[in-house]
């Protein structure tokens, strides 16, 4: 039997681990435990709860107030991994600089990033938003309409991204994508990027922005862009949305084509 004194000697290690990884524990609590509990209590999904909150607290037709309501809900009440206000500012800046006319968004989730992008688009630009999940797409649709964007500006495509990308040219008459924003499954970053490369929709100067490349992280994606040499790229370092201590990054890629 191990003596209690030796067990006590492990106390500093335990404390160290708890303190060092406290943000991860908090995240686990907020994103998993609270969610399960709330699901059981209310019988609604997380996205529906968020939608209800936004409906109550935001002004319809005002994207800013909708985004703000989302931010408040995500940081105070529960947790949804939207892009968040800090990284959102970087995204806004990139959009302002680029002012793209055709934008593809992979992973609308519940519409936060869609509203964010649509808000920053120039007149006459069109945003194609891809969402796989039916229920999430319904909520995203509602949120987008609530923010006052119509079908001409934002087109929501309810399908998995790997099915949508090859058919973009045929079904939607797209010739070139100016801006692609990725925030769906981290594992599909790399295959989707390869699909995009293969589809020929990326032209010289097309920008691709991928969120959460460090946490939860997309190592294959990073390895691919490092190796392929098709892009000029950098990673904007930031923290994970609605959390202070977890480092995360947003990759910004500019397609250069084959030299």
């Amino acid at each position, binding site marked *: 039997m191990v003596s209690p004194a030796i067990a006590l000697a*492990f106390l500093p*290690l335990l404390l160290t681990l708890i303190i060092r990884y406290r943000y991860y524990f908090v995240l686990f609590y907020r994103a998993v435990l609270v969610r399960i509990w709330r699901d059981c209590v209310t019988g609604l999904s997380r996205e529906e709860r968020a939608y209800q909150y936004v409906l109550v607290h935001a002004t319809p037709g005002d994207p800013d107030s909708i985004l703000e309501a989302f931010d408040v809900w995500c940081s105070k009440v529960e947790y949804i991994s939207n892009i968040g206000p800090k990284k959102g500012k970087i995204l806004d800046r990139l959009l302002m600089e680029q002012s793209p006319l055709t934008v593809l968004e992979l992973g609308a989730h519940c519409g936060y990033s869609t509203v964010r992008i649509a808000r920053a688009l120039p007149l006459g630009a069109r945003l194609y938003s891809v969402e796989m999940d039916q229920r999430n797409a319904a909520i995203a649709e509602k949120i987008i309409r609530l923010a006052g964007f119509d079908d001409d500006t934002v087109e929501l495509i309810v399908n998995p991204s790997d099915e949508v990308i090859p058919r973009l040219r045929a079904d939607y008459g797209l010739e070139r994508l100016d801006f692609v924003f990725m925030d769906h499954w981290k594992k599909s970053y790399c295959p989707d990027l390869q699909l995009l490369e293969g589809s020929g929709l990326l032209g010289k100067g097309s920008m691709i922005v991928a969120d959460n490349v460090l946490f939860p992280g997309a190592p294959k994606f990073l390895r691919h862009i490092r190796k392929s040499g098709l892009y000029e790229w950098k990673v904007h370092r930031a923290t994970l949305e609605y959390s202070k201590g977890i480092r995360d990054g947003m990759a910004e890629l500019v397609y250069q084509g084959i030299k």
Partner: protein
Amino acid sequence: RRRRRDGERDKKRRENGRRKASKDVGEGEEKYQTKREKRERGKTKRSKNDREAKRRETYKEEPVKVKSNKTREIGKNAKNENTRKWEARMGEPEESYTKEKKKRKSAKKEMEEDGGHSIAKEETHQVNKIKKKKKKETSEVDNEDNEEEDDKEKELRPEDLSPEELEKLKEAVDERKKLIQSLRGKPWPMKKKLVALRESQEFVEKYEGALGKGKGRKLYAYKVMMTKKWMKFQRDLENFKTACIPWEMKIKEIESHFGSSVASYFIFLRWMYGINMILFGLTFGLVMVPEALMGRPYGSIPRKTVPRAEEASAMDFAVLWDCGGYAQYSVLFYGYYNNQRAIGWLKFRMPLSYFLVGVGTVAYSYMVVIRTMARNANESGVGDDNSFNFSWKTFTSWDYLIGNPETADNKFASITTSFKEAILEEQESRKDDNIHLTRFLRVLANFLVLCCLAGSGYLIYFVVRRSQKFALDGLENHTWWERNEVNMVMSLLGMFCPMLFDVISTLENYHPRVALQWQLGRIFALFLGNLYTFIIALMDEINLKREEEMIVKFNITMWETSLYNGTEPENSTAPPISIHPADVPRGPCWETMVGQEFVRLIISDTMTTYITLLIGDFIRAVLVRFLNYCWCWDLEAGFPSYSEFDVSGNVLGLIFNQGMIWMGAFYAPCLPALNVLRLHVSMYLQCWSVMCCNVPQERVFKASGSNNFYMAMLLVILFLSTLPAIYTIVTIPPSFDCGPFSGKKRMFDVIHETLESDFPAWFGKVFSYASNPGLVLPFILLMVLAIYYLQSTSKSYKEANVELKKKLQAQNEENKKKNKRAALQAQMVLEEARKVASQTAGQPNNSTVLQEYESEAFYF
């Protein structure tokens, strides 16, 4: 020869002509040359002037005639230039000016091209140039000049040089050599440096052998060859020396990957290894080997024999690993040594040697540590970090030893963040509102650390008390865990508490260098507490053993008398009964026990270090690397990641390890050998693990100042570890039946004994007088006074340094003011020129005039 030279000149002229033609085409562009080019031209002009000035100096010692010639020429030159400038300024027609420019260009070109040839030749060229200029500008041809030119042409043949010219050539060669030497410090672009170097070398090669005539020439050539050989030999020797420094390449590689703070640990480790080698040499050569070779062999006397009760298990690995059995009864431990005064045919004074080596190792360590500290203090100089914070950051923050792109990235990021932080800090200090929070956090952190220290101290105390209880009960009744509780708890606390401190220290928000020092201080306190708790426990055990010894001593006398009583009546004339030494009862020998404890501690410590290295670094790295293919988040960039190299923990581990060696080496002569082994292994193991499993620190910082910090800590530890050793030596009488000092009242009595029996009587008398308190006290007083005096003088020097620094600063400010004034003046001149230019508007050349003016202004 002359023809050739003429031909060359002609060619050059033709070239110039060609260049002129091409220039005429691109003249329009030429007018709007960038300012930089102009500056360059200004530089060459200046350098020309410099060279002329130099030449003037060199010619001073020459015959008057030459001097007069020269001065005239220089004067002409200067006049020429002046007139040129004035002409240009007066707004001469464009053509002449552009010619001028071209000429200057060509002159520059010539200079560059002819760099490899003699200065004399350059002179001729210059004269040529002057001549040309004169032809074109003033059409004033001087016959004298012509003659002079011819003279110069003659000089160029090394075969029939006059001694005077020879001297000149020699000087030129010397100048070239000087240039080669000082080239590294010249503020030139690399390309120019390379060109200049190659040309100078060629020149030296060509003309060095040509110097001297006949016999002298040969001698000279020989001398030159020999110097070259000697230089090469020296260089090779230097290379060889660097190659001989152990692990130099490894450390350099690590330095390039991880920055100098990690490398400083390895350098420290190497230094430690060197010291331990010497300690090992002392103990091995003067104690262990003589005893093994010349002392009585194993089994001859009781103290050199395994007791009968232990004989059965004396060779078991578990027993040997615990330093029992045959390991205990060998030269490795104190108890094995005999108290025989002189051993072997050499009459080697074993007890004296043992004592002196024990004292000598400590004295040597003190000496080395203090000397190194003094040297480091000299090197570090007087730097104050507060006065020019941003300048320091700008100019000195790069670590030039980094050679790895990833580390360079990290360093770059850390410099940027440090700038941001410094700016923020500056703002904060201006704002001065958040300081209370920081202070509160720092106090809180220290409080937490204190709590942690107290907790660990109490835990060790508790464990030690428990282990004493176990020892009284008999160790056989308890489990392995309980028997090894003390060592386990000490190692675990030593491993985990620094981690906790590290986490706590993020609260404080210090600069990493300061944070490292705090961290070191805290771990130091922790280790020290642990060590001293351990020593106190040992002291208790020593007292127990001594009580046991008293009983054993009494028993032995009883046993002996009973033995003799039992045998005597039978035949009193027979020789005393021989009893096998293994059967003789013996005392507990506390010295060996202390030595064993230390050896065990060292071994368990080493094991813990290696196991943590393997588990914490290697296994973790392997898991992170290979689980990353099938994990739901990025393990490498995110949560567990790879470990960083923990400089402070490793340094302190090393220092405390050394402290234990110093403490225990007197009772276990094998300790330095063990330590050398450990350091050797850990050098290779840690080099490997740092290169293979660690990532560069996120905040790479330089460790230039930390070396002396390590040394200071080492000194403190040395002092603290010698204290208990000296205490035991001085106050506790040695065991009666083991060790070199058995039978004496105190261990240091061996000195007295030697003085009395081995030295003449007068020496003993002198020694007793010298050790008289009446003499010793004044001596100590004198020493204290001397120390006080030296300290006060060094303080005054420091003050003087500060004063000088202030003066320098004031001077700098003055200079700045002067420069500002000069710049203002230059601006005024420029304004004037602009006015003139606007007055002569319409003329096409105003911009060139302006340019000229600007370059003039640049001279100010």
